[in-house]
């Protein structure tokens, strides 16, 4: 493996959890719900996936547990913001704090355990192509799944009837309700999907990226995923671009330090944030009308008011 290939592989690993979590949040937000609990759901996904993977010695069961844990947390959030029409910002923050705490409790017996790396999927022949071969055809399943998810969500939102329903509920829940669309049911499913994605992202972090569990290991990635959704103007393809720019800048600034270019490391540490914001701003300038936030984003909805 050449240095260049190694760097590219590291970038893919750094970007994938951000992409998965941001895609889930994007769907939730397009239905009009702002869930600030991504960080907490991600931490729960990481803790539960690692605990299950170690207990049953199976990565697959671990991943399933991570997804379920994220969805479970999201269901709690849905109960509060849909059932009691509570403030979404407050509830989301509470979910983050709760998730970080509960994940520490669940993960406590597994601190210090480690898992072996999962084997990447090797597509014979194709993965032998120089440089791009390993990059495109020898990744783990998560990476392929995250790309597929981006495409599927883009198609779903733009080309399907159900996607249209979800978007119209997000734009104006009162009108959608007037048309007889099931606002609360759609939002509930969108919140669950967001939680499942955050849980999957957490599972990736614990099972592939670091391969151990320790409390607070999400280290703010949930917040970055949230920011990506906003800067990508709620578009799946741009979320993909944003996640990869952020991942690339994170990894490359470390290389710039090791190469001793003499740029202050504090400045380099800020590069991922700056690069992502600038790139996505340019995208929205270049490609015309930047769609704003969904019209009903963050507003509570009570059907019979």
């Amino acid at each position, binding site marked *: 493996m050449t240095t260049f290939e190694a760097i590219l592989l590291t970038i893919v690993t750094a970007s994938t959890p951000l992409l998965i979590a941001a895609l889930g949040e994007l769907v939730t937000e397009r239905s009009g719900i702002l869930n600030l609990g991504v960080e907490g759901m991600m931490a729960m996904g990481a803790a539960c996936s690692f605990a299950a993977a170690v207990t049953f010695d199976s990565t697959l069961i671990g991943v399933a547990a991570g997804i379920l844990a994220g969805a479970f947390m999201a269901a709690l959030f849905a109960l509060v913001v849909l059932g009691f029409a509570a403030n979404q910002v407050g509830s989301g923050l509470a979910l983050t704090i709760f998730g970080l705490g509960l994940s520490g409790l669940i993960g406590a017996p597994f601190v210090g355990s480690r898992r072996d790396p999962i084997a990447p999927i090797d597509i014979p022949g194709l993965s032998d192509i120089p440089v791009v071969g390993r990059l495109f055809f020898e990744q783990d399943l998560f990476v392929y799944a995250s790309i597929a998810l981006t495409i599927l969500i883009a198609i779903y939102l733009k080309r399907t009837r159900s996607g249209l329903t979800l978007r119209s509920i997000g734009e104006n829940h009162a009108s959608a309700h007037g048309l007889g669309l099931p606002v609360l049911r759609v939002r509930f499913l969108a919140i669950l999907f967001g939680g499942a994605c955050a849980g999957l992202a957490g599972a990736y972090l614990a099972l592939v*990226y670091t391969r151990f569990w320790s*409390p*607070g290991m999400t280290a703010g990635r949930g917040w970055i995923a949230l920011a990506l959704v906003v800067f990508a103007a709620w578009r799946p393809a741009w979320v993909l671009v944003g996640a990869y720019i952020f991942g690339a800048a994170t990894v490359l600034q470390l*290389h710039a330090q090791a190469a001793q270019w003499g740029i202050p490391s504090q400045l380099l540490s800020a590069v991922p944030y700056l690069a992502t914001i600038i790139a996505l701003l340019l995208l929205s300038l270049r490609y015309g009308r930047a769609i704003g936030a969904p019209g009903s984003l963050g507003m509570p909805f009570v059907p019979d008011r």
Partner: protein
Amino acid sequence: MFSKTIMGALAGAAALALSAGAASAQQKLKVGFIYVGPVGDHGWSYQHDQGRKAVEKAFGDKVETTYVESVPEADSERAIEQLARTGHGLIFTTSFGFMEPTLKVAKKYPNIKFEHATGFKRAPNLSTYAAKFHEGRYIIGQIAGKMTKSGTIGYVGAFPIPEVISGINSYFLGAQSVNPNVKIKVVWANSWYDPAKEGDAAKALLDQGVDVIAQHTDSPAPIQAAEARGKFGFGQASDMERFAPKAQLTAIVDNWSDYYVARTKAVLDGTWKSEDTWGGLAAHMVVMSPYKNMPDDVKKMAEETEAAIKSGKVNPFKCPVIGQDGKEIECKGNGALSDEQILGMNFYVKGIEDKIPQ
């Protein structure tokens, strides 16, 4: 509305539980600990918590311990005051950033004894303590200098503060003492604790030809990255062998247990005084985990250096120390740099090609 009622009820129940606990424990000495990270970080805070457990084990029924973990440095005053108000007689605050808040609370509660780790501000009821980690870093530097095949060793640092910089210098001086042509690359994670990023920092070093990595961040991610690539590394703060059984050459283990037990005993006996303690290998505050995965001659060298540092024959910062610019650093100690010079170190030694980020 509904959720508010539930929260109120929960808070009330918690307050009741706390006051009940306080009433039944009046005769015991309550010892409190404030940690900057989670006890499960398997590094800095974990080792402090091992010290807390040692206190419980040593005194049994005579003490009761409490800890508050993951306390942000900016918000620590509230947590410290909380311990002070709930009847604690001895409180350890275990991060540099807790210095001002600890001092403030200590002045407010003159009858309670406080102990602050790695700081320099004392009061009649406030002691400070720290460990000479740079002694251990000199040993791992020598090992790295012997073990590197590429001639380039690496260092993952958290923040460019004196504690970390003196560690880098000591590591490099150790390596240079056995391998005069050795080079070092430093990458700053700009975080004490972000496992994924620490791991990426280590990978960046490995990608650029480094084959032995030392770290001054708190998670086992860097040494694990070395393990995955078949290279070497050193454990930080605690023994990280289980994360990297083939890569860990040794670990610099913080050992607070003896100190915490001694200080608790002093309070129980009524002999506690405000002091400044800065112990190293000789005081057992810094312990090297077993030397492994290296040839016998390297192991022997490491053991000899460890013994020599303990007996005072070897000092990592023995004068003359030459700065990066080639000028000799003024020698303010007895044949070596003074403690103040080490605690405030803000320069790289000669041979390190990088610059300290300002």
